[in-house]
């Protein structure tokens, strides 16, 4: 039985349908990640799960019990969960008071409260801040107080809304570590939202892709990142090369797709004549100066159209009949002396191509 589940859950604000027919199942102890672009309805869904708002249709189940319209048990159920908002608000009191409040509201005794607060503050590394006014903390510290405050109540389910969205990279990775720690130490079920696909990949045991208020794919991170169901998901999870073509040959699992008079080999179950899109992640594409053979089945000659540096990585656009984007380290780009207009060879493996039916 799933710890938290929804059946055809929907939410409307006046005439706008923010969520429709959401069916998810979150098992005990798993990290369930909602990924999707801003405005996809992630926050709305988390608020419905935490029973902060009421859905327009459908049900929320907690441990198999329908808790959607249950006014009597609403508080009891909500007290089994904790929700860290995207922009956590701290109460203008000491860090101690902020972390202790959830326990105080539950009528927990003073000694136990003190012990719990000490424990969670040590976990988030803010023990020395216990007497500070929470309003004077930095963004990353506030986020850690918010997580500590939520964990102090020992929730069965922890809901996190974009826990690292407003943080600098160092604070963000600290918070990510913290989430990992919570999972391994307490076995807390976590439902979190993020628009950072890489974060979803790092933390999640299960991912649901939410686009325009609908869950369009659910699976583990491998399935989502390497086998997206459609173009929208593919784009969103970072597949930058989507090439339309037709399957013209088939030999066992190996198919040949013809696109712009070029042939791309891929592994797919689709048959001859099928109109498909070939999805190639930019990091699957390698660049060489000589077209020496490798185990990769796809190799094309082309000219560099553009080079963009992203920190330690460079994004190289190559015109080889169709446009192909490769992600290589900036160091290797320099070693190969890549520049605009230079002729190169691009290669990728047949297994690096994911086929979507058009």
């Amino acid at each position, binding site marked *: 039985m799933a710890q938290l589940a929804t059946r055809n859950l929907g939410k409307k604000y006046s005439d706008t349908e923010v969520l429709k027919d959401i069916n998810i199942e979150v098992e005990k102890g798993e990290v369930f990640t909602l990924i999707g672009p801003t405005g996809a309805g992630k926050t709305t869904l988390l608020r419905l799960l935490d029973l*902060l708002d009421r859905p327009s249709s459908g049900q929320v189940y907690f441990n198999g019990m329908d808790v959607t319209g249950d006014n009597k048990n609403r508080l009891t159920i*909500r007290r089994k969960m*904790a*929700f860290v908002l995207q922009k*956590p*608000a701290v*109460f203008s009191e000491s860090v101690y008071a902020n972390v202790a*409040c*959830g326990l105080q509201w*539950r009528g927990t005794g003073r000694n136990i409260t003190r012990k719990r607060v000490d424990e969670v503050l040590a976990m988030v590394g803010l023990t020395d801040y216990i007497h500070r006014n929470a309003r004077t903390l930095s963004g990353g510290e506030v986020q850690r107080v918010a997580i500590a405050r939520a964990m102090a109540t020992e929730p069965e389910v922890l809901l996190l809304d974009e826990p690292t969205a407003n943080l600098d990279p160092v604070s963000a990775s600290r918070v990510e570590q913290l989430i990992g720690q919570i999972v391994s130490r307490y076995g807390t079920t976590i439902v979190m939202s993020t628009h950072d696909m890489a974060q979803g990949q790092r933390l999640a045991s299960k991912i649901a892709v939410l686009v325009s208020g609908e869950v369009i794919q659910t699976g583990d991170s491998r399935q989502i990142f390497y086998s997206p169901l459609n173009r929208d998901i593919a784009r969103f999870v970072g597949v930058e090369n989507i090439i339309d073509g037709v399957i013209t040959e088939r030999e066992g699992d190996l198919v040949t797709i013809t696109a712009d008079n070029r042939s791309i080999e891929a592994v797919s179950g689709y048959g001859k004549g099928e109109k498909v899109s070939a999805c190639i992640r930019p990091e699957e594409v390698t660049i060489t100066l000589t077209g020496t053979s490798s185990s990769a089945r796809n190799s094309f000659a082309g000219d560099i159209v553009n080079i963009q540096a992203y920190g330690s990585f460079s994004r190289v656009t190559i015109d080889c009949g169709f446009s192909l984007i490769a992600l290589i380290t900036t160091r290797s780009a320099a070693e190969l002396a890549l520049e605009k207009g230079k002729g190169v060879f691009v290669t990728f493996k047949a297994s690096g191509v994911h086929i979507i039916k058009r």
Partner: protein
Amino acid sequence: MEELWQGLQKAVELIINLDPEVMEVVGRSLRISVTSSLLASVICIPLASLIHFRNFLGKRALINIIQTLFSVPTVIIGLFVFVFISSTGPFGSMGLLFTPTAMIIGQMILVSPIMLGLIISALSGVDTAIRDTALSLGASELQSIVVILKEARYAVIAALIMGFGRAISEVGCALMVGGNIRGFTRVITTAISLETSRGELELSIALGIILLLIALIINVALNRIQQR
């Protein structure tokens, strides 16, 4: 000009020597206004929370009416209370007319709109995320309201002080339902009004200075609170 100068000198003497009559009037003023303000806050804090946190038909209109009553003339409140507690009024038998109790009731009614209005706006000034955070950490509805009141505490205290300022400085209502009886219902403002009409300027000026001092103290307190 000479008269004013002499009045000022004598007034300062009255204050420095802690003149019994002056002190008695000031003490009564403070007692009555503090009592009325405290009683009004006991009613206004929960009532303002109720208005703010509940959605009901005519909420906007009610808040508009409350804000309009910020500047209700004190004599209108005086008249209103008078009608109710005069010997022919519905509460006439209680013998409240021309007593400090009547003055307290009048001032409570007078300051309630200011307190209500300012507390409501103090509560709406609190980030909605505070309420969501409290609820999501397991607060009941009531506990979440207490959290929001706590967050708005400085603005709420400012609202209460504003109410007290209006109570201690009003004259119309105190005169009409208190009757300005010496040693019983005479307060700073009614005393100033009477003594001035009798030409006893030094006592009026002394009381005026004290009233201004009280106003100054209130203002300093308000400023300090608002700076938090």
